[in-house]
């Protein structure tokens, strides 16, 4: 596409940009100044003003490619800010719940005892999972891998769910600021303020990331990060090689047993195994004290499995490429 004027080119570029009003104005001003220099250069070389504008805009590059590059950088930045904000909210919510459990809670919590104590525990875990995934995909992985993973869309969806999960927690926290001890009140006030801010960042990220949304598995990103980290030192590279070799051998020799821990090829079976492990691990302190609480561990395991069923696909832990995995040990196919 050729442009007969600098204004036409800048308008087209600005229309394609998803970088916010201020960013768009700044880019448009910079591009206009640069194009003015190019036009002056072309006119000095003997071209007519129209030909100079055409040549200048052609030299500057296709606006769609330029806008795509700006949009991608801006999307990553927005997603990163939203991930930090969500992590801060989760830390504040967990801190407030922890302080309340240690004795700073109001005598008569609003709206009632059950909501005050259960909401942060249940929804806080969902938010923590979402925050962890988003933080991994937008902060840790780009830093370790030196590139933006193809899972940015997964990260911002996880952020949105995490912030929405924290919204009722923030409402309950707001209703109890005045009647709680000062430390619990301060933490509750922080949650009340931080969650709406994180929601704004999350919405901004959602609006910007759709232009670069790509398919990708969080498991692939985790594997790439582990490999990159392992190859940084010779000892870790040797350890990584040993673990990989042992895993492959185990899959070949005991395919049915290993299917319970292979998340890529057998997501549902591995989800059951991980949920049971989570149930046992979360009740480990009680077990060490000799207080064996089997129903509580079973409830934790069931909650972890339900969480996987509800949020596994959203967090990129199942589906997508998993279906096309190469068979190992002669056992082909993948669970849905």
């Amino acid at each position, binding site marked *: 596409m050729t442009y007969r004027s600098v204004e036409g080119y800048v308008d087209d570029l600005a229309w394609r940009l998803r970088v916010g009003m201020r960013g768009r104005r700044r880019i448009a001003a910079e591009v206009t100044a640069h194009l*003015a220099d190019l036009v002056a250069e072309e006119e000095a070389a003997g071209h007519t003003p129209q030909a100079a504008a055409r040549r200048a805009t052609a030299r500057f590059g296709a606006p769609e490619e330029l806008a795509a590059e700006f949009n991608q950088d801006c999307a990553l930045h927005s997603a990163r800010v939203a991930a930090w904000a969500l992590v801060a909210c989760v830390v504040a919510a967990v801190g407030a719940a922890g302080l309340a459990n240690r004795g700073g809670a109001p005598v008569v919590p609003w709206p009632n005892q059950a909501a005050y104590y259960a909401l942060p525990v249940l929804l806080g875990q969902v938010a923590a999972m979402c925050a962890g995934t988003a933080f991994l995909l937008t902060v840790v992985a780009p830093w370790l891998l030196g590139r933006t993973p193809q899972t940015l869309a997964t990260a911002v969806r996880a952020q949105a769910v995490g912030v929405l999960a924290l919204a009722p927690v923030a409402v309950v926290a707001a209703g109890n600021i005045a009647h709680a001890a000062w430390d619990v009140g301060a933490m509750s006030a922080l949650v009340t303020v931080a969650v709406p801010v994180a929601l704004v960042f999350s919405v901004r990220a959602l609006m910007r990331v759709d232009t670069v949304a790509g398919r990708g598995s969080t498991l692939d990103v985790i594997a790439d990060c582990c490999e990159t980290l392992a190859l940084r030192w010779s000892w870790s590279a040797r350890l990584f090689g040993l673990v990989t070799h042992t895993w492959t051998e185990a899959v070949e020799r005991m395919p049915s047993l290993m299917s319970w821990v292979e998340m890529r090829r057998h997501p549902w079976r591995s989800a059951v195994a991980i949920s049971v492990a989570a149930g046992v691990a979360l009740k480990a302190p009680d077990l060490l004290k000799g207080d064996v609480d089997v129903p509580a561990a079973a409830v934790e395991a069931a909650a972890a499995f339900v969480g996987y069923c509800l949020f596994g696909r959203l967090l990129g832990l199942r589906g997508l490429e998993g279906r096309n995995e190469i068979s190992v040990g002669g056992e082909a196919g993948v669970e849905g």
Partner: protein
Amino acid sequence: MSQDMMRGHLDGLVLAVLATGPSHGYGLIEALRDRSGGVFDLPEGSVYPALHRLERAGLVASGWSEVGGRRRRVYSLTASGRRAAEERRSEWRSFSAAVERVFGGEAGPGAGVAGAEVAR
């Protein structure tokens, strides 16, 4: 040099040019072209996403100023930008020396034997 190959090194090249002094986008792309003997002939706009990315990373600072009668955004390196430019320079030197050894090095005795096996 292909544009894709060039793009992979653009951030480092921008830092290297800015290490010689502050510049605006137009001056920067001219310097890239001149210093590369015309080999780096990218679309001129491609330098701006790199500049904005580097500014967000805190390696570059910018501000509007009047240059040659026109209002332009001038970019300069920050202290961490100077350190990053130096790091990239030394990384590139060791990398390019290794590539040169592979591409331009004489074939060793092992390579000769392998070559003979293939020929046979």
